[in-house]
């Protein structure tokens, strides 16, 4: 039992961590927390099932198409819900615009795809029992993603430009960095990462429209725990959350495990509003 708790805990934890990274990627260049993060994860599963199962494409083209579609939705998010409200960031209008967009995505999926969970295909057909691909695939994808992002941010010019914008928007613009294009690029990247989360976790979570708000909430917890914009914190927080949730699931049952997660979340947040590795808030006066 312990083995299966750990296997499934790490698997869902990896999905949560990836959604957390999706949040962070959007936040880095825009200072906006977007409610669409969870929907992107949900769409990763839905598009994956659509392309690979319903349309019968091979895995690789299906993956590429899924990533492309979600990247596009990321860009649409930036144009529709983020750019218009960036001028008045202090009024927090982005909470409302991204929530509205997230609901539009969710409801359209429910109406046009299905209101019932749909199956997700096996991707590699490797492993069985606790070594089944549905458990280790999300973990591998999560680790590859974080390594890839570290490489991007540290070793490439575009990645360094991202970091510069995240550190100091004004200074970066003064240096002549194309702030708007970089922001669009980061939203496309976030879309792809969210899609990866849904695609890799598809066999666990299935292609289901209601995964959107679920992933939105459980993906936000790692961000809150790890500190805004801190990807490594999100990964650690994601795995911890996954393990805690699955352990609670096995011990006290589904409904009370979500109560336990929520209570723990509130307590941790109230005790450490900046997260475990977060920075202090800015000066106000």
């Amino acid at each position, binding site marked *: 039992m312990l083995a299966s708790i750990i296997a499934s805990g790490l698997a869902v934890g990896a999905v949560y961590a990836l959604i957390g990274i999706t949040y962070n990627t959007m936040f880095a260049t825009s200072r906006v927390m977007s409610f669409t993060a969870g929907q992107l994860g949900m769409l990763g599963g839905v598009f994956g099932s659509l392309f690979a199962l319903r349309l019968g494409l091979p895995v690789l083209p299906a993956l590429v198409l899924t990533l492309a579609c979600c990247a596009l939705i990321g860009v649409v998010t930036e144009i529709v819900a983020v750019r218009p409200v960036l001028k008045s960031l202090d009024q927090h209008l982005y909470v*409302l615009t991204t*929530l509205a967009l997230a*609901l*539009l995505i969710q409801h359209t999926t429910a109406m046009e795809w299905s209101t019932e969970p749909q199956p997700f295909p096996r991707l590699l057909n490797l492993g069985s029992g606790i070594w089944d691909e549905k458990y280790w695939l999300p973990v591998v994808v999560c680790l590859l993603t974080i390594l890839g992002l570290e490489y991007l941010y540290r070793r490439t010019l575009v990645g360094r430009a991202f970091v510069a914008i995240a550190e100091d928007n004004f200074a970066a613009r003064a240096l002549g960095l194309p702030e708007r294009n970089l922001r669009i690029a980061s939203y496309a990247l976030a879309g792809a990462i969210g899609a990866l989360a849904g695609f890799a976790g598809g066999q666990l979570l299935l292609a289901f429209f209601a995964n959107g708000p679920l992933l939105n909430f459980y993906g936000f917890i790692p961000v809150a725990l790890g500190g805004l914009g801190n990807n490594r914190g999100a990964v650690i927080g994601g795995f911890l959350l996954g393990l805690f949730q699955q352990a609670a699931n096995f011990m006290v049952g589904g409904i009370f495990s*979500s109560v336990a997660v929520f209570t723990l979340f509130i307590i941790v947040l109230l005790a450490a*509003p900046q997260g475990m590795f977060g920075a202090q808030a800015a000066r*106000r006066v």
Partner: protein
Amino acid sequence: MDATTGTAPPRAAAAVKLAGPLTPLWPFLLLLASGLAMPLTGNDYWGLIATRMAVYWVLVAGLNLIVGFAGQLAIGYVALLTIGAYTTSVLAAGNVLPPLPAFAALGVAGLAGAVFGVVVGLPALRLRTFYFAMTTLGFATIVTQITLAWQDVTGGGIGIPGPMLPEPFDTTWGFLYFCLGFAAVCTWLTANIARSRFGRALVAVRDAEVAAEASGIHKPKLLVLVFILAGALAAMAGGLFATLQTYITPDAFTFDLSLLFFIAVLIGGRGSILGPLLGTVILTVLPEIAAPLAAWSTFLYAALLLVIVLAMPGGIAALIDPRGRRKLPENRVIAPLPEALDALLGQRQVPEPLRLRGIVLAFGGVRAIDGVDLEVAPGQVHGLIGPNGSGKTTTLNVISGYYRPEAGSMAIGAAPLPAGQPQGRAALRIARTFQTPRLIGEASVLENVMIGGTIDGKAGFAEALLSLPRQRRDERELEARARLALEAVGLAGLGEVRADRLQHSELRFMEIARALMLRPAFLMLDEPAAGLSTEEIRRLGALIRNISRHGTGVLLVEHHADLIFDICDQVTVLNLGKVLAAGTPAEIRVHREVVSAYLGA
């Protein structure tokens, strides 16, 4: 001006009455009358819709104070509706305790709602906006799951019957009348809060949090009171909702409802009562007249939310608010009235001096202030000058309690002034203005100024809720004092204007009026002359001198050397966080280091 009475300042005040949130009253009465006339249609279905509208409004009226006034994005408010519906139904059905009468059950639900209202709201006191929105959503999910799981009490997925109200409220029309009456009372209650110092403080916390603190507004206390009220109303709406449904299951409390409540406030517009009421009416009717779209109602609400935020952020309230369009007088002149200042400040007991000794404060490795000594004497104007980054504003922020110094002491006379605690300064009669005016753009100039007198209100929240005599007396006094303050700074004719329509120079004087509401012992002005014309600077100088003559100690941070040397009794010059020189203007003017470091040859 009135020649015969000589010194008495003109009172334009008496003519215009402060417009409350229920002014004009006729739209409210019209809505109520059409609700009351529903039985004439003989159509039970429409009676049902009207009842639902009234029930929703009971919840939205409270939520409006949280979202529309305090600006807290509480999205998952369906949770409180659920709690209220189940509390009432379970208590009335008697499957836990002996059955209670429906009205008693409704009352208990209100209490439960008050408690859970605070539980849902508490994170708002500590967390950032997005985090708070997220926790309210999480809470809504949890409550639904608990109602599903706790089968012994809630009936789980099967549900339980809603409570029946006794005669004469047990018919369609009787229940409609009961709900309409309840909704009318809620409208009155929330309007009372909206027009009290509590309502103004809520808006101040939303739009000008720093200025609210400087005016002595204690945000957590204020928000908790409003969470209690809104929670109680929402839970009682839940009880009525259960009666209306006659049978409730967890499915009845969808996220759509949360969205409906939340969007009703936003469509209505912030800081209004009529707007959200109309929003509730529209959103309740919309799915009925667009029946084929019922399956898409979430989509519709979401699209509406997006359009409102992007296209008409002011909501309905902005469309129906005449203040935004009325023409302002041209060629306005700011003409401070010394007589009004006399009437406002009077002659008071002279306070003891404010002393700073060896104040040190570093940001990271930079010592922003490094051992500053300063003494502001009552009845004097003390100038604080120095190059940019020399620590002037930082010194002001230390005195106002926004920063805690690492070393040094502050005291008024013999009484030590505690470090930190910006909300405590108003009670000590320490007032201030800000380098960039902190205003509530959507409120009138008069309301902005009244914020400054918040701590002098004597009536409590409950008295404000019921608009009891002491509350009304408070309001009259605050309003009269605010009009005096506006006359004193020379903005007498502009009380009813929306603050965001004033010119920059007028805003600077409005901030001084707000500070004067405290009848301050010490007044700190942060670059009040920035952006003013020469003539306005001259009048500002006279006003400041005049204020100090009434016993107030003024600490003036300024770059206009002429103004400083004209009106100051004492001048302290800062450079790199240290006191470079201190003395009378005459001494400073010839101080060699000051001249070379700051004033120039």
